[in-house]
């Protein structure tokens, strides 16, 4: 399926490119814009980004695969990121992580059948002082326990 940026996003890309002395340096912000539009980074997206920034698909692919925040397959409507690094772990992150896995019946990296949720075990998110935490898409939910996680999941399910 062919991928083309919307006109609005083309303008955003022009703004992003202005920040850098070299066009291809804007690959990270442009990939974010693409991900916002398309939901994930497909081969077609990579081709289009490469042609806009006058670089090769290989270079763009290299960037996509290096950074964890570019989705290489479609994520759920709500992408749940559970931090299990030490500070969160010490305050019960694995209970929360296992609870989410049980409740949604998915493994790390999977998407639920209704495409509502996807799950990712992530590294430290900088919420050590308010641990444990889950990020839902871009929003942080902190100071959690299993009950609060249930409330979050229920509110998203509606």
């Amino acid at each position, binding site marked *: 399926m062919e991928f083309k940026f919307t006109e609005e996003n083309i303008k955003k890309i022009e703004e992003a490119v202005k*920040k*850098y*002395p*070299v066009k*291809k*340096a*804007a*690959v*990270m*912000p442009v*990939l*974010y814009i693409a991900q916002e539009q398309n939901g994930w980074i497909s081969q077609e997206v990579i081709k289009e980004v490469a042609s806009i*920034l006058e670089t090769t698909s290989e*270079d763009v692919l*290299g*960037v996509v695969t*290096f*950074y*964890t*925040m*570019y989705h290489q397959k479609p994520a759920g409507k709500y992408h749940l*990121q559970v931090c*299990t*690094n*030490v*500070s969160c*772990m*010490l*305050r019960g992150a694995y209970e929360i992580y296992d609870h989410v896995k049980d409740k949604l019946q998915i493994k790390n990296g999977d998407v639920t059948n209704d495409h509502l949720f996807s799950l990712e075990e*992530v*590294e*430290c*998110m*900088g*919420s*050590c*002082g*308010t*641990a444990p935490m889950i*990020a839902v898409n*871009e*929003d*942080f939910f902190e100071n959690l326990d299993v009950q609060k996680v249930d409330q979050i999941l229920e509110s998203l399910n509606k």
Partner: protein
Amino acid sequence: MEKIVLPDIKDLHLIDIYEQNGGYSAAKKAYSQTPDEIIDQVKKSGLRGRGGAAFYAGLKWSFMPKTTDKPKYLCINGDESEPGSFKDRQIFEFNPHQLIEGILITAYAIQAKITYVYIRGEYHKWIKLFQKALDDAYARGYVGEKMKEKFGTDFFVDIYVHKGAGAYICGEESALMNSIEGKRGYPRVKPPFPAQNGLWGNPTTINNVETITNVPPIINKGWDWFSKIGEPKHPGTLLYGISGHVNKPGVYELPSGMLLTDLIYNYAGGVPGNKKILCIIPGGSSMPPLRGDQIEGVKMDAESLKAVGTSIGTAGIMVMDEDTDLVKVLTRIAKFYYHESCGQCTPCREGTGWMLKILNRLVAGEGSTHDLDLLISVASNIEGNTICALGEAAAWPVRYMVTRFRDYFEQRVKKEVALPVPNKVHSMRHTAFPLAEIKE
């Protein structure tokens, strides 16, 4: 005690409130002096980097070439991915204008026309908050070409936010530069150092968010005022981030050189259930851990921690009580570095995986005492043999945790298995002579 980086002023993140409290007066003062005078004051203040290496900020700035036709760059490191560190996000949220003002002064001191503020991608909220503050500063003419008028100077600087995308290694300065250039975040071989060969081959300085936020008060109140705060060899306040098994986790701004016990018991409210402390990590997960019985009388500053065999790092203190499963904790730390190794250097790419495999064996109850020696051997073969310090960051927790908690780990392993030939450890980084000369 006066707070420098995060003062207790309501709504200080708003530009009006910041202006009412003397905001942007330090930049005005700085522009009436020469760049060298600014560098000199920061040098004399003794300000050290808050990002982990505690390098002298003024000295770092002085490495920038004075006579060059190339454009110069300033990068602000807000990648903040070190587990246990959550201080820079407080600055983005509560005092972003002081960071911007710090950039205005620093960029002037090193004559950089463009500054990139690198913020980790997961910090969506804090990127928006900082961008809002930056937009306001632009609108009032404090940043960009309009500042010539505002401050009556020939100098101007543009500030751009670069959003990371989830890679711990991009907190390493040369990886950070590659990331800004739109490449994979691979650390570069040093030398050449960034001041000679940084962004797109041009002179570049990289400083941590907290470091730069300290600059405006130094210019306003004088280097001698700053140098008298806290420990003389590591002056100023630190943002101590205390997490793990404490009653009141959080970021506390206090003078450097605070007693660890004071921070944990008085400020962070002690350990829940009055349990004993088994282990603490003083500066984010890459720093060597200390046993609970080693922390009495230990001060939190670069020199004092060095003396007890660990390091200040980002001053992110992780506290573990007596019921913590240290084997699991160390395995989780090893998993982190395995995940975050960029894969350029074989010792780190392979070694982090091996350490994780061995530790997983320990967690499963299938380890042996020789596994402990093997862990130390693998760790020692990573250290010093990699392009960047992620090698040390991965090796230190393993080596020091196993050494300092040897009894604890030995209790967790039962079997005795003979180890193959012990490895001889060489360090590539210190071999300035031909490889053929290395015999032992």
